[in-house]
Each structure stands twice: as structure tokens, then as C-alpha cells.
């Protein structure tokens, strides 16, 4: 790590590993599956209770219960407002310091949003509410933002976060029950997202995404059986999950540093190469590398090969005729594979110099492209536009198994003779992204 360090700042070189950050873990499951109890096995947790679920929990730890204050049928203060006051006044941090809390448990994420943050937003800004008492579209945006800020604030206190959520089922898939775009915020910001369920008589926590439930698994955990709550292994179950996840993130970071350095060494060699022979030697040497490294080195070699070839044969081409001649020479100078790659590179090179390929006459000609500003350009292909617009109303029907919607079963048609694909050397075709 770089020595440069002042309070609140840390300089990290691009090739240095990123120190492990605080984590957000989401545990969701059906009522009574033991989510709250399990959350108490995190490292010295402070439980923020928004759901009245504390009474049923086993192995209780320190908890703050947030309730809305209603006087004469009117909402005076929401639980979230109290929570905000606690944080903004600095008392929250005092509590954290005093009791050395390491983890904040939010129980449940959905109740916090629906019963506390949403009324708080409407209470403070009526335009966020609709006539039915729910949130407007603008209100949902504010809800998402508020939730995001809360998570960021707590993480900023150097605390891990565990969010407990009820589960709901949609399109045959279990997911955390949350409102609006907040589920997306949670999925994006969390490191672990696990579904807690009963399998036979055993409680199981699965962080792996499957066809039947959502998951996020930064640590590569297998499906985890929850030990009995009297077992010693149970006492620090979530704490251990978070610790392993942090170690894994840290090791990824170390591996990342090492990979970047290794590839950088090859990159320097490629940059220094002056002949095609030297490049070939590097490419052969790269074959001994693990796949991820090998593909990077081969890409660098190909890039260099193209630019060396361009420098050697295409520098100073003066007119369309010269460009046509240069194009025809490519297959004579290099093998088939490189010829194809070089073909793409040539058309790109020529275009930037103001020449383009006339498919009909098979010659290079002066380019007469029409310049457009970004605003004038078509935003997306009409087809893609239509697809995305319809997305909001999309409904999944089929199941990705053999038992998929019989409507979708395809019937064999008369055999058709496979068409030959077009030759690729002369016409630039962009590969699918």
C-alpha cells in the first residue's frame, strides 16, 4: 500500500489491491424461517427493529425499536424520522462507539420502506403521495434515493449492514419483498444476498442465484445448512459469512493485482517488439499462461501486429487507388486468420483517413459520410426501442426447462439446405456485441 496517508484520504495506486470494504448482506425468507434470529449471529450487531419481529427472535442482542407516533389519528412522527434524528444528532455514532457495534441489522428492509420511509416522505412533501395514500412515481424515486442515502451513511460509519427481508414470489422465483426501485438498489449495493428456507427439517441459506430464487454470492459459498441455535457454530454464523466474504474480496483484489502486473509485463514486451518474428515468439510463450492471461496477451499481440503492418504498408497511401491496392495485398502478405483480422482493421483505418469501400465495384473510394451531432443521431434501432418499451408490461410465462410452455415447442419443418455464409475478407461486418 502506498505510504501517502492523511486523515480521511488514502492514495491507492491503480495496480494496488483495494482494501476490503464494509459489506451489505441481505437475508430474506418466509415468516418464521428465523431471519431475525440469524441476523443476531452477526459480529456485535445493533438491531434496528422496524417490524415488531423481535419478540419471536432467539438469541436477542441490543435493539432499537422504531415506531410511528400517531396522535388523534394523525401521523406526528414516523419511525424513520426518529432514526434519522438519531443519526443526524450524532447519538447514533456515540452508541456505536460506546457499545463497539460492528454490524447494523435493518429488520425488515421492506417495512422500513413501506411503513416508515414512504409515510415520512409523503408527510414532508405531499406531492410524493397520491390520493390513495400511496407514493407517486416521483415519490418512488425519492424513496429509492432516501434508502440509498441511509445505506451509504451507515456504511460510512465503518459498519457492516445486514438487511433482513420477507420473501415474496413472482414468476415462480423467490425474491426479497421490497418496494419500488429499492430492491434494485439493494441488489446492486449488496455483496451477499441469501435466501433462507426450510429444506426438510433443516434450515438452509443459499447465496447462489438459482431458477427458483435470487442470490448474490461474492464469496462463492455452497448452499449452507444453518446449525441448531444451541450449537456453538450457530453463534457466529453470519459473522463468519461476512468475514469469509471480506477475505474472498480481499483475495480477489490480491489476485487482481498480480494478474494486472503479469499482463503489464507482457504488454511491455509487446510494445518493445519491432518485428513480426518477435511478436510470434511472445504469442507462443503466452500459450503456457492460464486462459485469462493468455487471451489478453494474444489480443495485445494482434493489436500490435495490425499497427505494425499498417505502419509498414499503409503509411503514406495517397489516393483511393492506393488504398484498393493495399487491400488486395493483404491476403498475399499474411495468413488467412490474420488476413481477416487485418481486413477489419484496414476498413477502420481507411475510414478514419477518409476512404470507404464501394461494395458494388469492389474498390476503395473517397468517403462521403454525413456528419451528425449526437443529438441528431438515431437513438436506438427501432426494434430495440420497441422491445424495451414493452418491457414494462412484460410477463414471463415459460419456464427454462423442458416443460416450458407447450406453445413454444417447435415443430420440425422440412429440412432446408444450410446457406453458405458470406466470405468475410472484403466486406466489414461487425460482430455481435
Amino acid at each position, binding site marked *: 500500500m502506498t505510504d501517502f496517508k492523511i486523515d480521511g484520504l488514502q492514495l491507492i495506486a491503480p495496480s494496488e489491491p483495494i482494501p476490503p470494504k464494509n459489506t451489505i448482506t441481505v437475508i430474506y425468507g418466509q415468516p418464521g424461517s428465523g431471519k431475525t434470529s440469524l441476523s443476531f449471529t452477526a459480529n456485535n450487531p445493533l438491531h434496528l427493529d422496524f417490524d415488531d419481529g423481535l419478540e419471536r427472535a432467539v438469541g436477542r442482542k441490543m435493539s432499537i425499536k422504531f415506531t410511528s407516533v400517531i396522535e388523534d389519528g394523525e401521523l406526528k412522527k414516523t419511525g424513520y424520522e426518529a432514526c434519522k434524528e438519531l443519526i443526524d444528532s450524532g447519538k447514533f455514532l456515540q452508541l456505536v462507539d460506546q457499545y463497539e457495534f460492528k454490524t447494523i441489522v435493518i429488520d425488515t428492509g421492506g417495512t422500513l420502506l413501506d411503513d416508515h420511509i414512504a409515510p415520512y416522505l409523503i408527510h414532508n412533501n405531499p406531492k410524493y403521495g397520491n390520493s390513495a395514500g400511496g407514493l407517486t412515481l416521483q415519490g418512488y424515486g425519492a424513496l429509492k434515493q432516501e434508502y440509498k442515502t441511509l445505506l451509504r451513511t451507515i456504511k460510512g460509519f465503518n459498519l457492516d449492514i445486514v438487511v433482513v427481508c420477507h420473501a415474496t414470489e413472482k414468476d415462480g422465483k423467490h425474491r426479497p419483498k421490497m418496494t419500488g426501485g429499492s430492491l434494485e438498489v439493494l441488489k446492486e449495493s449488496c455483496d451477499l444476498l441469501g435466501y433462507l428456507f426450510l429444506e426438510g427439517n433443516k434450515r438452509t441459506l443459499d447465496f447462489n442465484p438459482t431458477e427458483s430464487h435470487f442470490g448474490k454470492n461474492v464469496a462463492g459459498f455452497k448452499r449452507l445448512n444453518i446449525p441448531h441455535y444451541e450449537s456453538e457454530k450457530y453463534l457466529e454464523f453470519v459473522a463468519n459469512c461476512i468475514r469469509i466474504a471480506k477475505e474472498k474480496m480481499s483475495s480477489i483484489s490480491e*489476485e487482481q493485482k498480480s494478474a494486472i502486473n503479469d499482463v503489464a509485463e507482457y504488454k511491455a514486451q509487446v510494445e518493445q517488439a519491432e518485428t513480426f518474428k518477435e511478436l510470434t515468439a511472445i504469442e507462443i510463450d503466452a500459450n503456457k499462461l492460464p*486462459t485469462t492471461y493468455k*487471451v489478453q496477451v494474444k489480443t495485445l499481440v494482434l493489436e500490435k501486429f495490425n499497427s505494425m503492418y499498417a505502419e509498414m504498408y499503409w503509411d503514406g497511401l495517397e489516393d483511393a487507388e492506393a488504398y484498393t491496392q493495399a487491400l488486395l495485398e493483404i491476403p498475399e502478405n499474411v495468413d488467412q486468420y490474420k488476413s481477416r483480422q487485418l481486413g477489419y482493421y484496414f476498413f477502420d483505418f481507411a475510414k478514419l483517413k477518409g476512404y470507404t469501400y464501394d461494395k458494388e465495384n469492389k474498390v476503395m473510394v473517397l468517403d462521403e459520410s454525413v456528419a451528425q451531432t*449526437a443529438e441528431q*443521431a438515431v437513438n436506438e434501432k427501432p426494434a430495440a426501442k420497441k422491445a424495451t418499451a414493452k418491457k414494462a408490461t412484460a410477463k414471463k410465462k415459460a419456464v427454462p426447462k423442458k416443460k416450458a410452455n407447450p406453445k413454444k415447442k417447435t415443430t420440425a419443418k422440412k429440412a432446408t439446405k444450410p446457406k453458405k455464409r458470406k466470405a468475410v475478407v472484403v466486406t466489414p*461486418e461487425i460482430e455481435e456485441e
Partner: protein
Amino acid sequence: MARKAINITPSLLETVRKYRMELYNGFIKKEDVLKTIRGEYEPKVELTLGSAFHLLLQNGTEKYLQSDGSYKVVDASMPNEIIFTAEQVETVVAYEQRVPFGVKECKVNGWINVGDYKVRLSSKVDMLVGTIIEEHKTSKYAQSTKDFEDSLQWRTYLYLLPECDKVVYNLFQLNNTKKYGLRVNYGTCNFYRYKGLKADLSEWIKLTLEFAKSTQTLNYLRPEWIKTYDE
């Protein structure tokens, strides 16, 4: 077991998945899947804003920088060119500075055995940064995790690159309005290797092969060159 070699791209797997799952309100039709299998792509008539922005990410901003500070993006086969202002390209420049060690446009191929077939998965990742896979997505709409979490693209990448455990999707929203012009919002979402990834991928390859067999289009996935890999 004697196995026949087959060539499949993640893009075909995704098309089949979207068709089977009836995503986008059933927008992907059977004919679209068949076209993808046959390699009959709709010819592009002009460079779109999204494609031009993707080219900036793919090839680096420097390549398109003009002397007046604007960025002129061209595509070799397109009749138009799109000019971005420096401000519109700010997010890409910032992104490039964040990942200076990335290697762009890496071709990645590998094999997976599924039933009687030996399947070659051919793909190209937008960028590799050490052991992290980076993929760029541009859209005029705001995109998030839910748009990609079921995707077979990142699953294929993680399968093909065993040293990688993480895929980062860089999401660029191109918000083009009459009032404000083009504004670019940037966000990311990450996906990780998980137990069962190979099984999920195999299942969809199996479904894709079943589709190709039932529509008698399997031959398109067996070009002459791949037959030399038959076992």
C-alpha cells in the same frame, strides 16, 4: 462417447432464452431465433447513437479525438458519422482513467460437453482488467441488475475464463432530450461466479440444441471447420 462438435455464441443463447422466457412481451419470435442460428443479421443502415457510444468505449476515445476537442465516431461500413462534444464523452474518459490496465476486445473461446455434443462457445469480452471482466451496455433507458441478472452472457464469460470470479456491467444511459441535449448517466452492476453456473449454462445449451434439432437448423451450428473437432 462419440461427440459431434457444435459452435454456439452467447448471443444465440441469449436469443433462445429471451424467446423461451417470452421476455419483452414475447418480442423475440421463433423466426428471430432461426435468423440468429442461420447468421442472417438485419443489415445496419446507419450508425446509431448507442453503437457510436459503444465504439468510443470499445476503441478508446483517443482514436476519435479531433483537433477541436470533439469526438468524431465513424464505423467503416456506415454512411454517417456521429460527433460527440467533450462533455458528452466525459463519462467514458473518466472510465478509461479508472481502468488504465484494461485489455479491450478479447476473443474468448472454450468447450463444454452437453449430451452427445461437444460445444464450442465463441465470444468476445469488451474488456479484461486483470481477472475482472468488464462489459459495456448502452441504452436510452436506465438499466439495472434486473436487466442482466438472468443473462447467459456473463455466465458464459465466467465459464470460459476460470481465473475470473467477477463481471462488471458498465451501464451507460444515453438520455437524449430536446431540452437538454444528450446527457450520459453511468452506473454499474456486478455478477459473481456461483455454484451451479455450469449446470445453468449446460441447461440452456441443451435447450438451444433441442430448438435447433426440432427446426432442422443444427447444420448451421456445424460449419465445416468445426467438424474437424468431432470426437
